[in-house]
C-alpha cells in the first residue's frame, strides 16, 4: 500500500512518518504534486496559518492532484490539525481564504466560536465520539488526545462531526465524510490512542 505524507513546507513530518512505520506500514514524504499519482492514502499534516498553507498548496499546484485522489479515485485522505482545517470551504486565519472545500464548512477563531478561555487551546483533553466513526473504531469515548490550535472547524452539515472536545464549549475534534477524514488533535502526538486512530485510517 502506498501511503504518502504531503510536505508543502508547513511543519515537521518526522513523527507522522515514524508513527506510520511503527504501525507496520510504509509512508513516503512527498514534496511535489506529480508524485501523488497512484497513492492509496494521503496524510495532509500542517502547522502554521491557513492562508500561508493555502498559498503554498495553490502556488505549487497541489489542488488538482488532491481532488483527483479524493473525488475521482475516491481514495482516503486524513488531514491533521491545520491539515484538517484546510479541508474546509473557507478559513479566517490570515484573512478570509478559500480552502480545499472537501468537506463544506468554515474555520473560525475560537473566540468567534464563543471561547473565552486562554487561546491557543493546548494540551491533553478528553475527546467524545458523536456520530458513527471509522477513525474511533476500538477507541472508547473520553480518551485524551493532544491539541494545539487557535481556530476551529465548523462543518455545514453536523453529520460530518465524528467527535468533539470540551474546552470553553464544544469544539469539533474530528470530521469524517465518505473518504475524507480530519482530526483537530495530533494523533502522532497522542500516544496509544492516537496511534490506534492512525491505524484505523491506514487499515481502511
Amino acid at each position, binding site marked *: 500500500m502506498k501511503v504518502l505524507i504531503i510536505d508543502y513546507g508547513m511543519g*515537521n513530518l518526522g513523527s507522522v*512518518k*515514524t508513527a506510520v512505520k511503527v504501525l507496520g506500514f510504509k509512508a513516503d514524504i512527498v514534496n511535489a504534486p506529480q508524485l501523488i499519482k497512484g497513492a492509496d492514502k494521503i496524510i495532509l499534516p500542517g502547522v502554521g496559518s491557513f492562508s500561508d498553507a493555502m498559498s503554498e498548496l495553490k502556488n505549487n499546484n497541489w489542488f488538482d492532484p488532491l481532488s483527483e485522489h479524493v473525488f475521482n479515485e475516491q481514495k482516503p485522505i486524513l488531514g491533521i490539525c491545520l491539515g484538517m482545517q484546510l479541508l474546509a470551504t473557507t478559513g479566517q486565519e490570515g484573512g478570509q481564504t478559500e480552502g480545499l472545500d472537501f468537506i463544506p464548512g468554515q474555520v473560525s477563531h475560537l473566540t468567534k466560536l464563543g471561547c473565552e478561555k486562554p487561546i491557543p487551546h493546548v*494540551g*491533553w483533553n478528553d475527546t467524545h465520539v458523536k456520530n458513527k466513526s471509522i477513525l474511533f473504531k476500538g477507541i472508547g469515548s473520553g480518551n485524551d488526545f493532544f491539541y494545539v490550535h487557535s481556530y476551529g472547524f465548523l462543518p455545514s452539515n453536523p453529520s460530518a462531526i465524528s467527535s468533539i472536545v470540551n474546552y470553553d464549549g464544544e469544539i469539533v475534534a474530528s470530521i469524517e465524510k465518505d473518504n475524507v477524514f480530519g482530526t483537530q488533535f495530533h494523533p502522532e*502526538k497522542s*500516544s496509544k490512542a492516537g496511534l490506534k486512530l492512525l491505524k484505523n485510517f491506514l487499515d481502511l
Partner: protein
Amino acid sequence: MLKVRVIPTMLWKDLGLVKGVSFQSWRRVGTVLPAIKVYNSRDVDELFLLDITANQHTYDLDYDSISDFSNYCFVPFSVGGGIKNLEQIKKLLRVGADKVSLNTAIYETPDLIDLAAKKFGSQCIVASIDVKSVNNDYVCLSHSGSRNTDRNLVSLVKELEDRGAGEILITSIDRDGTMEGYDINLINKITSNINIPVIASGGAGNFFHMKEAIIEGGASAVAAASIFHFTEQTPEQAKIFLHQEGVPVRLTFKE
C-alpha cells in the same frame, strides 16, 4: 477538560542520560533513545530532554540526534539546553521538537522570548528557571545552576509571562535529586503571580509529593526524574494515584 501532566525529565550529558543531586554528583542512568522508547510505550504525557552541557559547547546543538529522538516520540517533546537564538529554535522545531526550553537566554537575551513567541507561538516557548534558597530568599541561577543572577524571582516570572513565554518550568536546585518533595512555597510564589501554566520540578520522591505540588502549589504539571530512574514507581502509577485523589489526569488508553 485539560489534564494535569506527569512529565519525566531526561538530562542529557555527552552521550548519555544522567541524574544528580542538587545539580552535582552526576550518575549515568542510560541512553536517550531507549529511554524515549520506554517512556512512549508507557504512555507518558510529555517528555523533557535537557542538554545540561550544551552551554559549554563551542559547536551548535545536535539537531541530528534530536531528530532521531523526536521521530520516536509520540507525545509532546520539549527540548532545552544551549539555545541562544531564533535560528536554533526554528531548527529544533523543524527536526521535531514540539517545545523549546530556555534557561540562560532568559537572563542574557530576554528579547529572544518575545521574538520566539511572536514567530512560533507561545505554546512552544518554555521558560526554565533554576532556583536556590539563600538566607530565606530565592536566588535564580543561569548556566545549569552554576551562576547566580541578581533577578528577583517574582518580577522575573511576571516579565517572562509578559514577554510571551507559554509555560514556566520551575526547578528547586536544593530539592533536585533528594526525593524529599517539591518546594511548595517556591511553586506557590510563582503560580500566585502569573496565569500561564507552571511545571513543578525538583524533589519528587513519591506520588503524594506530586499531589502537593498540584493541589497546594497550583502546578499544571509535575516533572520528575529520580523517582522514575531509581525507584519502581512509574508515571502511569502516579496518574492512577492522582486520579484517585481527584486530580484531572490523562489515564491510559481505553478501548
